[in-house]
């Protein structure tokens, strides 16, 4: 349990540095450190699937962010914050904090799965019947490719649409000649 507090402290420090530093590149690297801390937490909570996905996506996302960051000329942020914006964000953070305390009171203890706390959950059914229903031993795969395959189809559609949009926006040659009038 002490390990999680150390990791949590590490994540909080990295988040504070990511917000407060003036150098955009250090800020991006601190965002990466947050992701690595979360991935380690998943690993110690015995969720290796999530840990693998988290660390891999984090590395790739970090590379994308760094490429997008260091290509710009302005890598240092300067200037003071506005007074009104600070007040509004402090109020919002306070409201979320008060609501969060009440939510965390109702949640089960950290590291204890929900189905040991509540009876008749879906995850309990997946764990007890997943192997004979689908024949795979990795129950995470059995959930996202068999029980909840609609979700995966939706995710694939979202990804497809995102790529379509990116390729349309970032293409470098226009298909139409310039001198043609707009119809």
């Amino acid at each position, binding site marked *: 349990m002490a390990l999680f507090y150390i990791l949590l402290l590490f994540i909080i420090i990295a988040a504070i540095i990511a917000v407060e530093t003036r150098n955009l590149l250090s800020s991006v690297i601190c965002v990466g450190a947050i992701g690595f801390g979360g991935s380690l937490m998943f690993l110690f909570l015995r969720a290796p699937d999530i840990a693998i996905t988290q660390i891999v996506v984090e590395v790739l996302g970090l590379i994308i962010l760094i490429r997008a960051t260091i290509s710009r000329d302005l890598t240092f942020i300067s200037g003071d914050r506005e007074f009104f914006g600070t007040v509004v964000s402090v109020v919002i953070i306070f409201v979320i904090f008060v609501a969060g305390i009440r939510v965390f009171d109702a949640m089960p203890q950290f590291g204890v799965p929900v189905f040991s706390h509540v009876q008749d959950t879906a995850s309990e059914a997946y764990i007890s019947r997943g192997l004979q229903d689908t*024949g795979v031993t990795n129950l995470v795969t059995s959930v996202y490719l068999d029980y909840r395959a609609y979700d995966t189809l939706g995710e694939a559609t979202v990804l497809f649409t995102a790529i379509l949009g990116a390729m349309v926006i970032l293409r470098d040659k226009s298909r139409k000649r310039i001198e043609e009038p707009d119809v």
Partner: protein
Amino acid sequence: MKGMTVIVKTVSSWVKMLIFLFGIYIILFGHLSPGGGFAGGVILASSYVLLMLAFGRELVERNLPLPLASRLDCLGAFLFALLAILGLIVGGVFFVNFLYQKYLPGSTFHLVSGGTIPLSNIVIVLKVGASLFLVIFMLSRFRYDSKGPAEKLASDPTIGAKE
């Protein structure tokens, strides 16, 4: 971009095949051990991204051209929908695991088990890997060719001014 230093180039030419192999392992054993289509696809894409960072964009463009990557992307989406519709035709329910329930139950803890789930994993790898590769490739090309429209008109004779 002409790539990074000799050290980075040497190391990445050693580890690129290891990363690719690890990605294939994650995909093929995704139904038996931690991993699966999404993680494996991202790992395969990141091996290409490593090549792109170390050796420059031109080498990757020769190995995996942009039209081929976008076709792989479309093929992945198409095959995943096809698997779902095959479930509807053969098993009667959209996305039903017809191979496991009717034709090929396989034996637990073996590579051939789980019916359509390993096939779906492979298809999702095509989808995710090609998509992420395309995103990073388009972003890097956007960065290095980031001339303004006026300069591009002046430098590219195929667009604009005829005279």
